[in-house]
């Protein structure tokens, strides 16, 4: 068994039209199979752009990205994407949204099977009764659960999540975090367990609760500042992690890193890297 990284970013820089406006500068990441990586950083650090690079929605002018050993050249169903609040088409019912994704995933099911599978995954996220509703008829939390159900249904080995709980209220967010932990750790079915997850968030606590490793990004240009391993035992629960003595230490460390990034932006000339 090789331990080659499953998802990699190698020397990738990104800009839109003007090479003088660098959005991401020289990003290098190696994410192992089955690893849950959380990415935090202030707004404008390019964390969502990095996710778009991994999703294949944009191509880097410099550098390369790979998934499962293959060069990422465009979007693919080996990488399921959950966006903040728009992973579903508003004109299709929740079930049809999942059925469409299954159809595209080309897993060889019949139409009836796809409908049954879609319902099964809706059931898994507690939405068995809501398959025939339009996304707009559900609450934000229910929509995100549907999006997660869709991402799991197509059985992609890689999950890319762009602040999926960012627009939710505190209680709903906490529940979604527990649900995601539970699914990812294989609480319900083994098939869902062990996915490689790239999870973008702006919430430090969320990053610690979910991630095996937290990547801290800085701005101007967007870059990786620090990688912090999360030494909390698995399987985890949200409450268990919050009560762990390591939790406040990790949280404070990450907050310090983020503050340094922001301070540097406010007072240019201070070398953050050198200070630590």
């Amino acid at each position, binding site marked *: 068994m090789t331990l080659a990284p499953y998802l990699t970013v190698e020397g990738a820089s990104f800009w839109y039209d003007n090479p003088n406006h660098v959005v991401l500068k020289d990003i290098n990441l190696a994410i192992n199979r089955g690893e849950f990586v959380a990415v935090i950083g202030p707004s404008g650090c390019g964390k969502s752009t990095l996710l778009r690079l991994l999703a294949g929605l944009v191509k880097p002018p410099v550098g390369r990205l790979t998934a499962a050993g293959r060069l990422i050249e465009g979007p693919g169903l080996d990488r399921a994407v959950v966006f903040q609040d728009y*992973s579903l088409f508003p004109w299709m019912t929740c079930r049809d949204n999942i059925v469409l994704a299954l159809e*595209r995933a080309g897993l060889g099911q019949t139409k009836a099977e796809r409908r049954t599978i879609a319902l099964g995954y809706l059931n898994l996220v507690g939405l068995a009764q809501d398959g025939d509703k*339009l996304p707009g008829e559900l609450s934000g939390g229910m929509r995100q659960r549907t999006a997660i159900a869709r991402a799991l249904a197509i059985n992609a080995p890689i999950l890319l999540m762009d602040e999926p709980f960012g627009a939710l209220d505190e209680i709903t967010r906490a529940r979604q975090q527990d649900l995601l932990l539970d699914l990812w750790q294989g609480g319900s079915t083994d098939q869902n367990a062990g996915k490689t997850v790239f999870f973008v968030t702006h919430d430090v606590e969320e990053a610690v609760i979910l991630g095996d490793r937290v990547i801290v990004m800085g701005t101007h240009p967007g870059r990786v500042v620090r990688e912090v391993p999360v030494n909390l035992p698995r399987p985890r629960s949200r409450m268990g992690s919050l009560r762990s003595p390591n939790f406040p230490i990790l949280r404070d460390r990450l907050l310090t890193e983020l503050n340094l990034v922001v301070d540097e932006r406010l007072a240019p000339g201070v070398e953050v890297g050198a200070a630590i």
Partner: protein
Amino acid sequence: MLSDSGQSRYFGLLSCLAIVTLLFGAYGLITDVLRWPNALLFPGWKKIIPAFEVSAKQLVDGLLSSLSLLVPAVALSILVGVGAGLFIGLRPKVEAVLTPFIRAVNPLPSTMLIPYAIAVMPTFWSSSFIIIFVGVLWPVLINTLHGVAMLEPRWIDNARCLNLKGRQLVFKVVLPGAMPQVFAGINAGLIRSFLLLTVAEMIGSKAGLGFFVQYYADFAKYDRVIVGMIWLSFVVVVIMTMFDLLKKRILYWTKKR
């Protein structure tokens, strides 16, 4: 804010009827009672209502004749307009080339085509068909193009993440996403179509609602003219209400976002 509740719809219908009653009453007052305007040009209800009764069969026949022209012409415009709009809209290079032409042709009233349509096409029906078709085509085409251009980037991202391509991309994402604009185009096209239909019928037809109005105007039978106009307005209101119901049904999702 307009509410969708049954109560407010009921209220809307009642207010509408009240206004119509008020207008008809006012017209009756100045014609039948006060005998103030010219009685030939503005006949009272005492003349209009009997005229309605004797015209009933003509009105129904005229309506059927008008619809047999309107429905196929509008249907074809929608089919071609939406189809071409999707085709062009999804090909930015083609759209860039065609945009100046579309902009140039759009504001020309298709009534300007009437002399050519009459000269080139063999029958009244075919020349009117062309005029209505062209008149409805542009608003539908332009609004469809607009709808495709205005598709939310996040829907496109989403579609790309699912590797949606070809027909599936068009029918599952592009068309539904552009549908609000498509409906706006059809709405504008329908309104134009009524105008063009009646003008065409007034000029060259031997049947239809436009012909009915023109025919009796030539004989100075203004009670019949008014009957024709009321009937035409009624038909337009019915068609537009049906269209609104269809729109509400198909665009249900836009209310729930």
